[in-house]
């Protein structure tokens, strides 16, 4: 089942610092890599996503870096804020003609940003 490995399990960063979360996948058929943010008591919410035809995607303070040959991708949160404190999940899936969702999630990283 576990086809996406995520690290670290938890991360503490000072306000204004850079948070980095890493993921590695096994299935080379994966071609869509989203990141989700989850606050306590809430469902996950899509943060940013990337396809393997680009090596980097940036949206505001959030950047995904993608290394296809290494089968790794990472989330960078620049200028981390206390409001970013949440659990972050990476995921991977692939489009198939039958529209099946084979979304595999990492185990999650609990980020704490200290003021």
């Amino acid at each position, binding site marked *: 089942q576990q086809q996406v490995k995520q690290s670290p399990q938890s991360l503490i960063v000072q306000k204004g610092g850079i948070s980095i979360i890493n993921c590695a996948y096994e299935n080379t058929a994966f071609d869509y890599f989203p990141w989700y943010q989850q606050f306590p008591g*809430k*469902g996950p919410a899509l943060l940013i996503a990337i396809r393997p035809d680009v090596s980097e995607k940036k949206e505001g303070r959030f950047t995904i870096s993608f290394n296809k040959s290494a089968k790794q991708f990472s989330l960078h949160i620049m200028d981390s804020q206390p409001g970013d404190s949440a659990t972050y999940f990476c995921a991977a899936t692939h489009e*198939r003609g039958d529209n099946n*969702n084979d979304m595999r999630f990492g185990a999650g990283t609990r980020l704490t940003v200290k003021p």
Partner: protein
Amino acid sequence: EAGVAQSPRYKIIEKRQSVAFWCNPISGHATLYWYQQILGQGPKLLIQFQNNGVVDDSQLPKDRFSAERLKGVDSTLKIQPAKLEDSAVYLCASSLAGVTDTQYFGPGTRLTVL
């Protein structure tokens, strides 16, 4: 835009009892998903519906879990009988259509099996 609604938010039952969860997806979303999220783990897909048909239920423990989506809108997930290892948060999500369309998650139902 109203989000994905789920009820109940919390449920505590004894093992071997049955339980049902309800989900109302975002209006117009053809695809509905049920996930199981065990504490400390990422969500695991249980079943995916496209309109009112099942697209993928390969990870659904069919001996005890069942799900249906009535008229392609609301959905229920049932566990009968429940086991201790079923304690988890059950998340419902919906998307417009395909697998790479944004999935919008509900708040989940936290199930505790004693």
